[in-house]
């Protein structure tokens, strides 16, 4: 999904037709999208109406059975839990990411680029490696546990690995930069004098934040929410590794259908449902932005 387009604000300039040159320049992207997004999605759609053969192969037919099963209480519960974990992750990312982004945006230019580099530094290391690092940090005999015990903050060894808490920590850690960067970019554009005007007109720090700063940085927040919430619902690697398969999320269920369970049609139906949720979240945020 083209989530970043939401951060482009305004659009007050007159639109014009792309013209031949425009289409030529767009061609690589369009081809890429058609080949790797549109066609696969259509294949997925077709699969979602197929039946599973006795050897796990897809048998062509037209059935709503897979969708019916997707709304089975068991999967709905997993879906709800996934949305809940993703929402929690997003909430933590906003609460932690906003002040960080604000601080970076208001820092001296020389310091600013260094801080931004620090935000992006984790991307230089393999994602799996970083997740395994978290596992060794959080495990019962890990460093964090040892530290907390020696500081006498806890008496028992830490037992959060393979729990929802560990999954949330992993998700927040993985997605935090995707929240910080868009918020930073809108905070950086914010004119300092607007904040002063608000204070001058009688608003203290808190009201200035909620009445002026937050509305004006909302495009960044909503882009960040999209970049965190949507992928967090579908994430399966972190839940697998840090949740120890004890915290199933939608991503894991879908992955299982295409893998171990060998039920591609059902996996496809779940995938399509998932896609519909993404589109819904995206359009709600879009709507809020055009109103703001």
């Amino acid at each position: 999904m083209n989530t970043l387009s939401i951060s482009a604000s305004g659009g007050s300039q007159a639109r014009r037709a792309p013209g031949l040159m425009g289409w030529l320049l767009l061609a690589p992207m369009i081809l890429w999208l058609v080949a790797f997004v549109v066609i696969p999605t259509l294949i997925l759609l077709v699969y979602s109406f197929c039946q599973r053969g006795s050897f796990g192969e897809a048998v062509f037919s037209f059935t709503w059975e897979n969708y019916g099963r997707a709304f089975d209480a068991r999967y709905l519960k997993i879906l709800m839990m996934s949305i809940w974990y993703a929402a929690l992750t997003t909430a933590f990312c906003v609460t932690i990411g906003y002040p960080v982004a604000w601080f970076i945006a208001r820092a001296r230019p020389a310091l600013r680029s260094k801080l931004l580099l620090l935000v992006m530094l984790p991307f230089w290391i393999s994602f799996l490696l970083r997740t395994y690092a978290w596992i060794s940090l959080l495990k019962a005999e890990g460093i964090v546990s040892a530290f907390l015990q020696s500081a006498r903050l806890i008496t028992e060894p830490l037992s959060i690995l393979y729990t929802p808490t560990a999954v949330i920590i992993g998700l927040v850690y993985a997605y935090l930069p995707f929240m910080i960067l868009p918020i930073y970019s809108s905070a950086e554009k914010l004119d300092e004098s607007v904040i002063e005007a608000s204070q001058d007109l009688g608003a203290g720090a808190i009201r200035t934040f909620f009445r002026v700063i937050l509305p004006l940085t909302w495009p960044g927040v909503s882009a960040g929410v999209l970049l965190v919430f949507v992928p967090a619902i579908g994430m399966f690697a972190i839940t697998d590794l840090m949740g120890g398969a004890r915290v199933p999320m939608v991503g894991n269920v879908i992955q299982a259908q295409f893998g171990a369970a060998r039920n591609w049609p059902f996996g496809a139906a779940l995938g399509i449902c998932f896609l519909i949720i993404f589109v819904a979240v995206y359009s709600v945020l879009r709507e809020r932005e055009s109103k703001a």
Partner: protein
Amino acid sequence: MSGSNGYSNGSNGSHGSNGFAMELRSVTKRYGSVTAVNAVDLQIRDGEFLTLLGPSGCGKTTILRLLSGFEVPDEGQVVLAGGDVSHVPPHKRDVNQVFQSYALFPHLTVEGNVAFGLRMRGVDSSEIKTRVKDALDLVALDGLGSRRTSELSGGQRQRVALARALVCRPKVLLLDEPLSALDAKLREMMQIELKRIQQRLGITFVFVTHDQEEALTMSDRIAVVNKGRIEQIDAADEIYEHPATAFAADFVGAANLVRGEVLAVRNNGQCEARIGEGAVVLFRGEGIAADCADVLLSIRPEKIHLSDSSEGLMGAFPGAIEDVIFRGAFAELRILLEGGSALRASVANASAHKRSWRKGDRVWCSVHHDDIVVVDRH
């Protein structure tokens, strides 16, 4: 619209602070090793239009920010309506500011912008409505309330910024070079309108600018600011006719600053000084000690009278016209005196009959003794 729109808060003279709306009492503000404002005393009279005039970096904006509360003085006091507000934050001060960049809230409509200050003060919504409407009427923006600020022209934004500050009925309105972003024509119009609004509302205005014409047009009083100090504070014509310092003379209007060697100080207070070979001028030298050797004199170009003979002229001195620049209503002349120093003079282009001066002409210059001002002495 009438004077009954409730802007004048009836506060004139009622502050119990000797008729001063605001005061700076020996205020100093430093940024690191730079002293932006140096022991400044400033008394802003109730209901006056005071302009802080000076070049960029002179400290005038810092003075304004000390008044608004965005800066806290390192030394001295900021006094508002008789009370010390040095450490009162901007949102609790009864002053409002019009920002140089206008600083309108882009996420709010024109009405939303103007109502902002009232909402923050908890004014009830029906009163907000009438006051916002009055304020928009006042700045001639009636009917544009529901526009977004991005749909407005520069001049209209400026008016919104003005309405947004005025609607709060501040004791003092601070304006930070608010006209500098407008084109010349619009700027002139806004100068007159600002002055009109200020007179009608009776609110004290403190206006910051580096444009001397703007200052001369609008102000009741001008404070000439230079290097973190106020060099002179007085009515516009007073500053023009009797500049206190060389800087004030040079910055407000054009001035010839000439060094003179004191020849005699008479008992009647008049003083004689040589400003060039064969050029001795007479001027009021009150306060000049008998042993004073050197003075710096300010002579306005239009105060120099030119004639082709010295007949009937007291204290005239000769020179040669080195250059003539035609300016339309007047001509600017550069006159070389004997001994090498030069003077700028301007001559009104009054009528076709009058002799016009040409390059190379020999002239006799004379200046009335009241028009020569001592700006420095050694």
